[in-house]
């Protein structure tokens, strides 16, 4: 699943500047995939046995060094392959990112209630013959070769892994050690290999500075994502985002736990400046809590709307380009169906940090009937800073109580030191809440 020649650079995402006012708070920041190094992003569009997969990676080295080897369940024809638009994936990332929202306390002296806020829920004409000949001699069959956009693509099948791996290495694909067993396993499961690398001539002719995502459409009863090859060359854990676009409802893994991250949590004000650190540490801690064996749900929502929006929902055109085949061309279906769920697309964003030890098996998925909306939403509440026309003793005390509660929650979620957190909180009136000194044994097992 993962590129074999890797680079440690993050995707550059477009910053969203719109701060729309919404019922669920004012949107301030998001935790997008650029927070994590070496992240792969995969969009899976699936209905019945039809699948369209879009693969984006954060490779930013020399284009001629890029290669990808992916197990695919069926033979792939030329028309089943496409080169997509990176901007759409960046948009999907932004739309589904965990978000930070803020509220400002109203004037505590005013009479309206300041109760708790509602919690809401490859074409090589000359070389081709030579390639085929060398392939046959090693028991490898080149079932097809295409040039699509800036990529040279081969569909390979083989009797045995050693021939295939030798052939790939001879032809400039650096296959990591230990790949034989995994490749054998996929061959045994009747899978083929989709091999792509950049055709530098085509790339300079087309004028792209970066690699565009590859898209493949196929029909198979396997609703899965092969991750085992990715664990071979990785230095440490791999970061993978799966965006599933389905018709019925949320997608979950059937062979690993799918866990919702803590959400709708109130955080101290200073987290606004450290949202990225907060999210990274919170994710790491939650992953540890699940013995590093869980897939995390970051977003599950009907594509027709959002609240608050980290970015606008994807347009009909963008969804079509991602391969959402059940939407009619030029919004035909949307016109016919004038109802709240006009888009008829449900998006699930899964985030998994994996390695061979904790994720021995490929990810197997199923679509559920669950259409309940879920988002990673983190809340900052700013205390009232205006003129006071009444006695604020009671209000100030309640704010201090809230600040202390937020500090403890934050420490609990991220594993940050509670004393450091308290240090950063401007407790109202400068009065630190009286806290009982922690007994020495309180944190020794952390």
């Amino acid at each position: 699943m993962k590129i074999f020649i890797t680079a440690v650079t993050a995707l550059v995402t477009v910053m969203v500047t719109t701060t729309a006012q919404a019922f669920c708070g004012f949107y301030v920041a998001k935790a997008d995939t650029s927070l994590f190094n070496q992240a792969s992003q995969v969009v899976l569009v699936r209905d019945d046995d039809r699948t369209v997969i879009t693969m984006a990676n954060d490779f930013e080295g020399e284009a001629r060094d890029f290669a990808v080897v992916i197990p695919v369940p069926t033979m792939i024809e030329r028309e089943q392959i496409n080169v997509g638009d990176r901007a759409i994936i960046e948009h999907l990332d932004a739309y589904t990112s965990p978000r930070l929202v803020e509220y400002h306390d109203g004037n505590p002296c005013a009479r309206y209630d300041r109760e708790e806020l509602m919690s809401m829920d490859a074409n090589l004409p000359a070389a081709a013959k030579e390639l085929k000949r060398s392939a046959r001699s090693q028991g490898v069959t080149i079932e097809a070769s295409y040039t699509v956009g800036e990529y040279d693509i081969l569909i390979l099948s083989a009797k045995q892994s050693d021939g295939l791996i030798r052939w790939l290495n001879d032809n400039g694909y650096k296959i990591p050690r230990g790949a034989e067993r995994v490749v054998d396993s996929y061959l045994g499961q009747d899978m083929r290999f989709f091999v792509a690398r950049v055709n530098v001539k085509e790339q300079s002719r087309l004028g792209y500075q970066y690699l565009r995502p590859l898209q493949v459409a196929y029909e198979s009863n396997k609703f899965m994502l092969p991750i085992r090859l990715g664990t071979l060359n990785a230095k440490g854990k791999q970061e993978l985002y799966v965006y599933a676009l389905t018709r019925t409802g949320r997608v979950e893994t059937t062979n690993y736990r799918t866990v919702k991250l803590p959400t709708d949590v109130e955080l101290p004000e200073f987290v606004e400046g450290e949202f990225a650190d907060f999210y990274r540490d919170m994710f790491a801690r939650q992953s540890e809590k699940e013995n590093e064996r869980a897939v995390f749900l970051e977003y599950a929502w009907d594509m027709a709307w959002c609240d608050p929006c980290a970015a606008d929902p994807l347009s009909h055109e963008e969804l079509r380009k991602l391969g959402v085949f059940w939407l009619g061309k030029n919004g035909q279906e949307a016109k016919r169906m004038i109802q709240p769920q006009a888009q008829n697309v449900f998006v699930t964003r899964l985030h998994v940090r994996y390695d061979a030890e904790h994720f021995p098996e490929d990810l197997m998925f199923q679509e559920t009937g669950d259409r309940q909306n879920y988002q990673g939403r983190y809340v900052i509440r700013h205390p009232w800073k205006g003129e006071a026309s009444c006695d604020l003793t009671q209000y100030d005390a309640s704010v201090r109580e809230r600040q202390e509660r937020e500090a403890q929650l934050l420490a609990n979620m991220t594993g940050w030191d509670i004393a450091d957190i308290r240090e950063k909180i401007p407790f109202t009136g400068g009065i630190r809440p009286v806290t009982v000194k922690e007994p020495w044994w309180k944190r020794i097992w952390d």
Partner: protein
Amino acid sequence: MKLISRLADPRYYQVAVLTTLLSIGVFVLDFGIRWQNAVAIILTAQAVQFIGTRLYGLPRFDPMSALITSLSLTLLLRTELIALAIAAPAIAISSKFLIRVKGKHVFNPANVALVTLMLLSDHAWVSSGQWGSAAIGAFGLACLGFLVLTRARRAETTIAFLACYGALLFGRALWLSDPMSIPVHQLQNGALLIFAFFMISDPKTTPNAAVGRMVFGALVAALAFVIQFIYYQPNGPILALILSAPLVPVIDALLQGTHYRWGKSDAQSSAHVKGVQT
């Protein structure tokens, strides 16, 4: 005497274990089980059991089996539609009264309800991955389940199923030259163990003869493997059980055995079912 006969009835243990599992699922693993569904399932099951008892003139109303069925359904069935949460136990319990061969119901009630709803609706599903694969958790489940089984004294189906399914998984791994961590991971599935210890083990819907139960367990394992690893569909065991269930009367006709009665040990049971010797 009454107390002794109660202790001999393994269903009390089953209810205790299923309730424990349900609590773990709700409070520790945060499954997303809706309490409304749980209430709807339990009440509907009892209501249908009561109606069935009256209609079919059974000597007394027995709430225990219906309670076990509703706990299994609560653990396994996921839906956001309350109508489906009501339909599930209605299908389950009524199947016991309606689909019978030689005085014995054919389908495991919870199993028939799950499969019917999954086939008919997009809004019912089983979250087989939600138990996670923490080894200790799996071990705990197995032990608890085994306790129930030894009381039920009819463990052959479960043992045959797990042995054959395990053998097939390890065999597949060897054939594909996969690391053994893969079949181990596949076996550490909470939903699989619940199926093996609490669904396929149901003495009422498994063959009367011990050999028959072993054959049946092995058959379900083979079918489950085909569904899960050749057709790549989730919920292989649950689908395999419903496909195999109609063979139980056939196995019973071929192999002599004793029909199980709750609260009676095999020796006490008087209802001998004479099989046809071939």
